[in-house]
């Protein structure tokens, strides 16, 4: 078992929370993990990403090689394309369909390009709103990507509960968001 996962988006979108939950779930399945994160300058509204490796064997590289990501999960369409070159031939591309308007770009062209690459576009904003909070958008996308992760849904759900253990209401909202993403 080896999964290379790229999580990307814009600083402040909750990418590290997604990865934290994946890591908790992976550890429940006895997997090792290694994650490269971005700290510092780019966190100010710039592109951010995390490279997350899960494996039942020792992991060396902090960075995923080009063409070897099993999943690129993006909180923002333009950022999905910025990391698309990491995708493996059979890798999955899952992206939020909503643009983050802190820069100008041709949204339609970007969405069309994601479709051309057979990426899944998720209206995560609407689903998060249904779940009860826009802040749960990352959990919608986690749900939408669950199939590509190769982890048990029940472990991911347990992980969400653990990650938000101090705030029960928030945990409920996030579980709901995860479920909505899962159903698609």
């Amino acid at each position, binding site marked *: 078992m080896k999964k290379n996962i790229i999580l990307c988006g814009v600083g402040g979108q909750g990418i590290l929370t997604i990865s934290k939950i994946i890591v908790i779930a992976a550890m429940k399945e006895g997997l090792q993990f290694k994650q490269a994160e971005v*700290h510092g300058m780019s966190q100010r509204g*710039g592109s951010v990403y995390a490279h997350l490796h899960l494996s039942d064997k020792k992991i060396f590289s902090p960075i995923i*090689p080009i063409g070897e990501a099993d999943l690129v999960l993006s909180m923002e369409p*333009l950022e999905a394309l*910025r990391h698309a070159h990491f995708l493996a031939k059979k890798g999955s591309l899952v992206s939020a369909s909503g643009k983050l308007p802190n820069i100008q*770009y041709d949204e339609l062209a970007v969405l069309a390009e994601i479709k051309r690459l057979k990426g899944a576009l998720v209206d995560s904003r609407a689903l998060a709103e249904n779940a009860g909070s826009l802040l749960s958008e990352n959990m919608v996308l986690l749900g939408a990507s669950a199939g590509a992760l190769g982890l048990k849904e029940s472990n991911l759900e347990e992980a969400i509960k653990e990650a938000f253990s101090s705030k029960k209401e928030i945990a409920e909202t996030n579980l709901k968001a995860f479920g909505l993403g899962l159903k698609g």
Partner: protein
Amino acid sequence: MKEVVLGDEALALGAVHAGISAAFAYPGTPSTEITEFLIRHREKFGIHTEWCSNEKTAFEAALGVSFAGKRALVSMKHVGLNVAMDAFVNAAVSGIKGGLVVAVADDPGMHSSQNEQDSRYLAEFAKIFTFEPCNAQEAYDMALQAFDLSEKLGIPVMIRLVTRLSHVRESIQTGKQRGQNALDTEMRLRDWVLLPGNARNQFQKLLEKQPLLLKESEKSKFNESKKGKGKKCVVCAGNAFNYFMEATGGSLPYFKVSTYPLPESKIRKFCASFKEILVLEEGYPYIEEKMLSIVRCKERKITGKMSGLIQMAGELNPESVKKALGIKVLEPVKVKISLAQRPPQFCAGCPHADLYRALNEAKGSSQIMVFGDIGCYTLGALPPFTAISSCICMGSSVNLARGASIAGAAPSVGVIGDSTFVHGGMPALVEAAKHNNNMKLLILDNSTVAMTGGQETMVKGDAMVELIAGLGVPRAHIKIIEPLPARHEENVKILKEEFAYAGVSVIISRRLCIQSLKKGFR
């Protein structure tokens, strides 16, 4: 115990378990998380931890702890070591008492830095011992050992990190916290008073320690190798080892360097049967250069950055290492449209943006030279503001403006954050006040070390006014403005008035960092 930590945090935890009594630092990516972690847990650990004014004062505080017999950690980013250089080099000459470890995080690829200098050269320059971990576990294990070695050798020991290691999160195995050293107030005058007579003796002692350093490096279990047959072998260090293992699974014979000075005899022995040696390392070609004198080169080829096989600038990645090894790089998915860049930018509601709007209007079309400094406000160099024209090193804006003013570009303007001003700008302002140079210093006081994630600053509120007055700036020309859209006209007027005055002025643009405000600071 198993713990999930960042590389930086693993090093910090290793230092705690090695029995440190204190840790000092100035924030700087990618080293910041070492001290953030220690501050978060300082009560549990029972240690003293603090952010200092700059890396030099941080180093000196750590050395003071060491002179009093206790163990101390000082951490910084690579360019911070330049600031600490005077204390750093001389501490090796004076020697230490309690274990003193210097954690330096290099930033190859310049993710958040002005250069990609390689700290291994500076450790060699100071003639001290260095560890280079390749993962968080090693960062922890090496920190534990570094303190023992520092006391054994009587010199500071460096641990060199790089961005990809500082910011890698993984699970590590940890042990127990060792007790702290007892206070020892014995004063070693002949060691520490570096008057020429003593300094000559001390430097001689440092030279005589060098074979001991080499011996420690030769026997270190962190230097590992995998023997094998064939023509070709790899000599690698730190994170480069990870890419090598990822690409080959360790199928080639390799020697992994983890300590400096290089374990020369071990390397020489390992390389004896190989005709081609590929050197993989993050940063400058430090090992590659040394290899030329370690192994006989007539009969063999050494490749790496100096040979041109690997690009000199920037960090390594899986692809550059694969290429160097002659392994095919996978064909990437092609994105057929061009992608807009998303550079870092000011947060919505950032006080710096309002200040730059006022500054640009006050300046108008005049040819006033404006020099910037290091912090979030450096982003004011980018459109739509394009308001500052330099970012050289911490505190430089003050004397760049003063120098330009002396050259005839008067008035000239320096733009600096409150924390950066305290870090490195104050001595230059004393000069400007003494000579009453026609320059204006804008202190962007957001009461936060913002770019590195919102650490606490040294001088807050009206204390900043008193500080500046104390440095000699006339109170009539210390102005305070609040950078807010509603105060724009008023701020422009004040700036214009000060631009028209032919002497030194300081304008404090004071409003709390928007991120700190959200976090409910103060």
